[in-house]
């Protein structure tokens, strides 16, 4: 077996500060921090507000909805373990609450449009549940 086949998809390297985020994902929720002082929402997890530098933030459940800011269809993966999954789509989503994050998009290339409404779809990659995003379903 070649060495490459032994390379597994790299999972998140979780820190004590980010652990509540990943616990939330495991439970099917998108948890984000909100600043207790300026009330801005924050991603990625940290201990200080990057807006007002207040040091008290509270974990809250976020909507899991946002809009697609930009995307790329990857043909040559930057990490060898992802190469067999090409082509696949990654993108940046601006969440309803304000922050933006990088994610994997479960959307066909032809259906990708700028600013389209997307929602979280938790996917298992090996042992790691990850917040991927898909096209937002029609509101009922």
């Amino acid at each position: 077996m070649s060495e490459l086949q032994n390379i597994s998809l790299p999972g998140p390297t979780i820190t004590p500060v980010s652990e509540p985020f990943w616990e939330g994902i495991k439970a099917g929720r998108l948890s984000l921090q909100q600043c207790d002082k300026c009330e801005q929402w924050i991603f990625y997890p940290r201990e200080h507000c990057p807006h007002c530098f207040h040091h008290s933030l509270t974990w809250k459940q976020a909507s899991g909805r946002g809009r697609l800011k930009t995307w790329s269809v990857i043909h040559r993966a930057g990490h060898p373990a992802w190469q067999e999954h090409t082509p696949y789509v990654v993108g940046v989503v601006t969440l309803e609450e304000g922050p933006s994050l990088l994610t994997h998009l479960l959307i066909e290339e032809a259906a990708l449009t700028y600013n389209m409404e997307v929602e979280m779809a938790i996917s298992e990659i090996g042992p790691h549940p990850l917040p991927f995003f898909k096209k937002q379903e029609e509101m009922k």
Partner: protein
Amino acid sequence: MASQTQGAIIGIGELKPVRYSTGKTTLSLIAESVRLAIQDAGISKEDVDGLLVGPQVGETPQHVPATVSEYLGIDPNMSNTVDLGGATGPGMIWRAAAAIQAGMCETVVCVLANKNEKGETLRSPNRNPIREFDVPFGASGANTSYALLKRQHMEEYGSTQEDFARIAYWARKNAQLNPDAIFHGKPVEVEDILASPMIADPLHLLEIVMPVAGGAAVIVTSPEKAEKAKHKPVYLKGAGEKITHRAVSQAPNLEGLPFNYSIPRALDQARTNIEDIDLLSLYDCYTSVVATTLESAGLCKPGEFGDFVKNHTFGHDGDYPLNTHGGQLGFGQADLAGGMSHVVEAVHQLRGEAGNRQIPDARNALVTGNGATLSETTALVLGGER
């Protein structure tokens, strides 16, 4: 804010880029770059009392200035690692001048070099938060980040694939006048660029720099000391720097990109404006960087670089000479030394020694450097007169 001339470049040394540097170490390439720069300046290494180096990817992650000093056999009064990705080269030049102005030293060598061996990919390991929040989703490496930036520009402003391809076309065209360029003798047409494989859609292979081995060193001293130099000195007239983010997901919107601050700041400090610049020596790891840099520099309105590149010419004899050495897209990117190639070409042009690619009567150059994904930016105005 300083407005007088801040420092002077009296020596340059640059290795001819090669695809692979078999049998070389990064330290030996650093030393050879320094030797060439010292020789060009007509000084000895004992005249060097300041040292600025880059972080060495894959080798000597800590104590880099001491390691390099020891290897070169110098004992500087000031040394530091400058860590601004592709902006490191230009970032070193004003830092060297600032250290001289502060009285810490008189003559600084700024050096960047990297080996590149076949089958060995030297890269910095990704660390948190990028390692935690980007890599697990299938996004690692600069290609993805710059593809995201390009897609955003296309969607927001309606720029086209042809608009971006023209930037790579001019880089390759200019490289045909530089025998040191990795793509010398290999011109391409816009159609070739558009037909090259898609790496990270919308980025094609020929919109991406070729990694090479190489190195560059630049000697900076005070304007006073430079008057006695061997070559016509090139003066630092203005500098601007801005860092806005690290990960592409945390980048500001296009109208808030950091060159919008660093370029005007450098021009203001030099008391000049963009139309008085004779050479645009703009960092070009990808076509998408040049596109937004032209807009940030005020050469065209935001979103309109496509018309600008269609309606002008960018050779040494063109309306807006741009990266006359071929840019990194044509010259090759020797890791961080690639960013210094934009400084070195500006010195060649302002000394009037650029040979068959000389810009007639070149007096001022704008040099830019960019690290991460338009995250760390430095802009310099260099001039041939004090």
